[in-house]
């Protein structure tokens, strides 16, 4: 269990993180969302013990994370970095040893992960000669090589092609199944929706929304109605209770304040002609993010 309690971080006069409280149970995937500069990386660095909170406390299984426990923690930093001149093998041996592994353990794990990512032929290649996607895979392996209990992934999927994103997502799922607690940050709402049970949206150092994904969606209240019909639907945006609308190629998507508004909409179009589609949808995380943070992101 990772516990973050009333944590605040001040750099001089600038407050990077303000009063974050989170509880992340063992074996969960937790998503940390936020625009650039929201305080995600600072929070991660505090969890890792690289930075000390100005106030508050962060504990892992009741103990503060320090260099004594660093063998239990895996970290994939947002700014990717490996030694460009070392081979993949040398690299992983060094980083693995620094996480307290023996050479034979490292060899075994390296083999397993490279095979899984279809990157075995890179074992003795210098990192600088690998493509960016392959470097990211190696970076990911470096973070999970020592089978950490707590895994922190800062923007793990950025810059990867869809095939590799899928590969990494599956790996993350599997690690979760094995009981790893995973905290990850992302700009991509669909990744978060897909992977996380719990999440926290940060904005300017504060937590704006946090909790269970389903609860968040439910309590958000607003829902989406998407309609397709053979006649013009633009006039629907004038209906009471419609907050936002967006025209699509052959229809319209409306955000409504509550479910009842959808009933009114349904009544209104029934007599107008043939309706191809009428669907009431849960709000997407993207809607919630935009609403809470007030900025459009990706």
């Amino acid at each position, binding site marked *: 269990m990772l516990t973050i309690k009333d944590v605040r971080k001040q*750099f*001089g006069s600038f407050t990077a993180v303000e009063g974050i409280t989170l509880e992340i149970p063992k074996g969960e995937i937790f998503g940390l969302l936020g625009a650039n500069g929201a305080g995600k990386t600072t929070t991660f*660095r505090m969890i*890792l*013990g*690289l*930075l*000390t909170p*100005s106030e508050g406390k962060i504990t892992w299984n009741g103990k503060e994370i*320090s*260099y*004594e426990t*660093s*063998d239990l*923690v895996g*970290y994939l*930093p947002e*700014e*990717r*970095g*490996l*030694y*460009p001149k*070392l081979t993949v093998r*040398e690299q992983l041996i*060094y*980083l693995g*040893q*620094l*996480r*307290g592994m023996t050479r034979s353990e490292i060899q075994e794990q390296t083999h397993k992960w490279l095979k899984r990512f279809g990157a075995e032929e890179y074992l003795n290649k210098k990192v600088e000669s690998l493509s960016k996607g392959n470097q990211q895979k190696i970076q990911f392996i*470096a*973070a999970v090589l020592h089978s950490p209990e707590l895994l922190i992934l800062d923007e793990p999927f950025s810059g990867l092609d869809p095939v590799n994103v899928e590969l990494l997502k599956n790996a993350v799922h599997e690690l979760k199944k094995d009981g790893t607690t995973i905290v990850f940050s992302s700009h991509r709402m669909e990744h978060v929706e897909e992977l996380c049970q719990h999440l926290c949206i940060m904005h300017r150092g504060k937590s704006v929304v946090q909790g269970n994904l389903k609860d968040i969606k439910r309590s958000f209240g607003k829902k989406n109605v998407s309609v397709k019909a053979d006649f013009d639907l633009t006039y629907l945006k004038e209906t009471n209770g419609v907050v936002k609308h967006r025209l699509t190629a052959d229809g319209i998507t409306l955000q409504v304040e509550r479910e009842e508004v959808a009933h009114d909409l349904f009544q209104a179009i029934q007599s107008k002609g043939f309706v191809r589609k009428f669907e009431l949808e849960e709000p997407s995380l993207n809607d919630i993010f935009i609403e809470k943070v007030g900025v459009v992101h990706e």
Partner: protein
Amino acid sequence: MNKFFTVLMHTYRSKIRSKPFLISTLVTIALLFVVSNMGEITKMFGGDEESKIGVIDNTGNTLPALQEQLKAAGADLKAEAVDKSEKDAEKSVLNGDLDGLLILDKDASGMITGSYRAEDVTSQDLITDIEIALQQIKNKSAAESIGLNQEQLAAIYLPVSFEKQSLSDTAKSEEEAAQVYILVYFVLFFMYVSVMMYGSMIAVEVATEKSSRVMEILISSVSPVKQMFGKIFGIVLIALTQLVLFVIGGFAAVKLNENLSGSESIIQELKLNEIPTPLIVYALIFFVLGFFLYATLFAMLGSLISRVEEVNNIMTPIVFAIVAAFMIAMYGRENPESAFVAGASYFPLFTPMLMLLRVGMLSLPVWEVALGIGGLVAAIVLFAVIGARVYRGGVLMYGNAPSLKLIKQALLLSKEEKKNTTGV
């Protein structure tokens, strides 16, 4: 402690296989062999051919005396009479039959004069040989003309008997001073070169880890303090490895020369094998401590920069310090008793070089040396503590070129993190 050794071994292994290390070691050892066997190598190329000069002896009787003198001096030079006109003789110089042409005359007072002509007059050895021989002949004939005999002449040129004796028991003899001179010079030079080379290696290492951003993974696995010292110790080990290789290489080179030439080696000539052990121990102590001091400084400053290109900026002030120490040491070799040198030897950045110089050249009381070493150790601890703090803060900072402001900023950042620090 375990991870400290992981960092140490990683640094050592990756550096010892690096091209700069291999190349600089091999080139230096090759140079040692070449320099110490210079004589044999020139012989291998057939040595210097005996030069042949033509002599037009207008005095009539000087040539035999000249030939005798040259032979006695062991000069590689053959002087032969030429029965040609000056013009023709000059021609044979130009077409290479003769290396030079010497015309001997007498001046108004009956003294010998010489005029030497050659294609060019840059071959200093040859000219000096001739000039000295002529001088001898002139001296002799001048002495004869005023009626001095050989013994009287010899008495004039007999060197004065002059002895130096130090009254203090602990004072260094002249021989010892010469040994120290060489040892100190060697240590100073090696220290200078290795601090420049390995110091920048440490700074580059840190800067590379920062610029490649691997630093963030590193500091999440191992404390910056362990990391910094692991690196410093690793590189100190590299420097010592190289030193040992140089000593072995140098020794082998000198032995080889001994076998080839059969003459006394430079080691015996300078009695280097008789250097007192304490001095060698001091040299090692000062070398290692001095290296640590500078290495800590380099690591600290290296943590402040974000890119390898900026290493040069931080090198400058340290290089100034080393060059200053080197210059004072060079001055101190001639004037080891100078109060200025004594004072400067207590300044930690200068201590390794200057205190060693003074220990070697003078008979220093033990407390002075102890004070110097103590000051050096204190400075290392101080720099290490500050360095570790700056390093801690510095590795997370990316930005401008280093300045005092940056050091302050890094210290502030690490002060806030202080309570999290775990020792080495």
